[in-house]
């Protein structure tokens, strides 16, 4: 049977970063195909090219044997390839049915929208999937699970034969995950090719028919999955493929007796995001905050950084250096030089009589640059020209550079979108900070990172700390706490 979708030597660069390197891959009807790999392995980029959303620098995409040309999302949709993106492509203020219609609207004379026809079609698809959705509600008021279902309905209404989902379960509860895969199985049995990009190996173990591993933008392997014992064995091989041959070196950390409390939050409330957060971090310890994205992590960091004042509760935080989760919006001034970014917000320190002491500033900036290992070590380069990993190194170097003036560090998703080498360097900095007596709070969606670094892990769910676990707690336990007990997706979560 010819492949429904085949990718032929696709290649894509983003400036200095080679995101996808010559990947060829074929997807068949009737199968659920998982594409796995670490952060930054190129999974999303690859599938976006398959769906026409991103144009490849080289290579071809073939749908049913025919080249996808022109290479646009519109054409891909027309040819039957639909993608549900990680950050949903829904227009919030428009209603659910409007979103379903958008781009393929049924019309009467004069271009008048035939909403009845659209609704009928959408209802039929929803029935096939076994779900029901409020068609008239604005998309932004729907819960995360519903939004995802809406996106799937949209792809099916356009009669997609290939359905691609990018990290669909990142924001779902355990129950919703089962429901999703049941739906996907139904779709596959209906003759479609289902492709799921994920980093959750348990899903691969339980649901995938085939699994492809990407590493550093290259395809490493494609295997046929099996259930049961054989499956577990295969998973070991898959894991090895993901990590590469070298096992990650264990992070050496001299753990010290925790000292005084340097950061304390008591029953802090902020809007609907934080609903009574209580936590304590002592000098010399690294406390982790785990949790599904959208449970208040961002707001927590903002409160600690002093950017938002809580509605209720107490916050006591000694002088802190904060690394925010979005380095493009909050960490860096992309259009400014590396030098300016390394000392962002500290100009007052180098100012005498209103003028900046360029020599002193240069000295400090160079010191931070060298310490942080930024590549290329050019203070005059614009931040935007550096790779994600090096951009993050700048942000970290800036925070670390304030060591002698702060006693608390808050890191939010510090290694997101960062290559392995840079990530290790950043981990090293965090460990060192704790060793020198700082209180470190690490907010991360990467459980492995939390386990490797933290003395204890707090789980944040629905705006509250719902559990405190040791770093060696079984994955199952942590996972359950994160998705814990009837978690209701908040409107806006994960969007």
């Amino acid at each position, binding site marked *: 049977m010819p492949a429904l979708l085949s990718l032929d030597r696709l290649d894509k*660069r*983003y*400036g200095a970063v080679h995101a996808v390197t010559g990947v060829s891959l074929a997807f068949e009807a009737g199968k659920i195909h998982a594409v796995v790999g670490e952060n930054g392995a190129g999974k999303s980029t690859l599938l976006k090219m398959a769906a026409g959303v991103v144009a490849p620098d080289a290579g071809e995409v073939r749908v049913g044997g025919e080249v996808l040309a022109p290479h646009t999302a519109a054409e891909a949709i027309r040819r039957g390839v639909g993608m549900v993106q990680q950050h949903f492509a829904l227009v919030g203020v428009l209603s659910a049915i409007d979103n379903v219609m958008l781009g393929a609207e049924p019309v009467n004379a004069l271009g008048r929208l035939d909403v009845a026809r659209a609704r009928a079609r959408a209802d039929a698809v929803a029935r096939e999937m076994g779900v029901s959705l409020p068609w008239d509600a604005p998309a932004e008021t729907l819960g995360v699970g519903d939004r995802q279902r809406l996106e799937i309905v949209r792809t099916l209404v356009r009669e997609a034969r290939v359905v691609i989902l990018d990290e669909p379960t990142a924001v779902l509860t355990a129950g919703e995950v089962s429901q999703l895969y049941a739906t996907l199985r139904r779709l596959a049995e209906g003759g479609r090719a289902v492709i799921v990009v994920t980093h959750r190996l348990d899903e691969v173990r339980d649901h995938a028919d085939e699994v492809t591993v990407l590493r550093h933008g290259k395809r490493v392997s494609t295997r046929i999955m099996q259930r049961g014992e054989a499956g577990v064995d295969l998973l070991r091989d898959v894991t090895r493929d993901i990590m590469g041959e070298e096992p990650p070196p264990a992070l050496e950390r001299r753990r010290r007796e925790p000292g005084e409390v340097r950061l304390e939050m008591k029953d802090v409330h902020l809007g609907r995001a934080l609903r009574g957060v209580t936590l304590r971090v002592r000098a010399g310890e690294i406390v982790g905050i785990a949790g599904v994205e959208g449970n208040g992590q961002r707001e927590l960091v903002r409160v600690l*950084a*002093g*950017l938002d004042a809580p509605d209720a509760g107490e916050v006591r935080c000694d002088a802190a250096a*904060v690394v*925010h989760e979005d380095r*493009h*919006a*909050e*960490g*860096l*001034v*992309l*259009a*400014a030089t590396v030098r*300016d970014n390394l000392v*962002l*917000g500290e*100009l*007052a320190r*180098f*100012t005498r009589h*209103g*003028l*900046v002491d*360029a020599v002193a500033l240069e000295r400090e900036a160079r010191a931070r640059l060298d310490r942080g290992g930024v590549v290329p070590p050019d203070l005059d380069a614009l931040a*935007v*020209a550096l790779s994600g990993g090096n951009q993050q190194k700048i942000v970290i170097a800036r925070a670390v550079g304030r060591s002698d003036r702060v006693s608390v560090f808050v890191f939010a998703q510090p290694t997101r979108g960062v290559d392995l080498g840079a990530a290790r360097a950043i981990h090293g900095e965090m460990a060192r900070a704790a060793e020198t007596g700082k209180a470190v709070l690490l907010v991360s969606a990467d459980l492995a990172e939390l386990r490797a670094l933290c003395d204890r892990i707090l789980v944040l769910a629905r705006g509250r700390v719902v559990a405190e676990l040791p770093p060696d707690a079984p994955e199952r336990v942590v996972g359950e706490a994160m998705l814990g007990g009837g978690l209701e997706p908040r409107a806006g979560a994960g969007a």
Partner: protein
Amino acid sequence: MSERGRQTLVATLAGIAAGWLAFALLVWIYGESPREVAGQLLAGTWGMAYGVGQVLYKATPLLLTGVAVDLALRAGLFNIGAEGQLAVAGLAVGTVGASLPPGTPAWIALPAVIAVAPIAGAAWAGVPALLRARFGAHEVISTIMMNRIAGAAVGLALARGLAVPGTVRTPDVVAGARLPRLEALGLPSLHGSAVSVALPLALVVAVLAAWWLARSRIGRETVLVGLSPSACAAERIPVARRVGGALVLSGAVAGLAALAPVLGYKGYYESGMGAGAGFGGIAVALLGRGHPLGLLLAALLFGTLEQGGLAINARVPMEVMTVLQGVVIVAVALADARVRAYVAGSIALPRRSRGTPP
């Protein structure tokens, strides 16, 4: 040449080329020969001493409004209100200058009247600045409104007694408050032209502005805020204060543009004086690309066009020059965006965020 230098050169050349094409087209449509008209333009400007002086005279306020608009642009703002700020400042300068005791010596009178200009301009920019900094209201509409209100307010003030009865101008300023013309100071070749000490003053301001942006703490923070308000806010840089401050400073510099016509040329303020310098300043700022030398050259270019327009007015309407301003602005901006996209490859430079859109 550095990457940025190359970008600047390409954009500037594109602007000039587009300007020339538009000029030639319009002149030809009007039925005249572009080359002849261009020749007449050059003859009437750089071809004679009086012309050179007039070009310099016209370039002076353009340089200042150009610096003013540039200052605002650095903070991510559009100050379209230079026209109104200039008018209010001109009225203030003319009035204060005329109210001084008749024998006031220059060393008292000049600093006094020169100080009035930026204060008035800054005050007029204060309302849009406040609206923007406190409430996030976009400054494009508010500064344009202030322009129109300035027109009416100045008219009202003149009608209500500030003007010499029967005219729309203030009384003459005292002798000590006049800025000497350059010809009187030893450049007799510029005889008859209105260019005054205001020109070197403008040059000093341009250099000072560039130096302030690069060396002072507030200046540097202002530039960073213009590039990314969110990152600066996250690092506790007072974004609203820098933004508001930049607009007020911009207004102050725009106010200085009134000095050349009021103190350097006529010796009084007349309704309508300095018209066109506000929008001309936008063209200068966009063409001058943030460098004092660039701003000066752009001011000289547009000053040439303005004076040249008068020289050719008999053959071709001088309004052609306003059209050229628009064309040059777009050409430079297009070339700039193009060049930026080409050089950056697939890296997109972040768009300047601008608070509430207009």
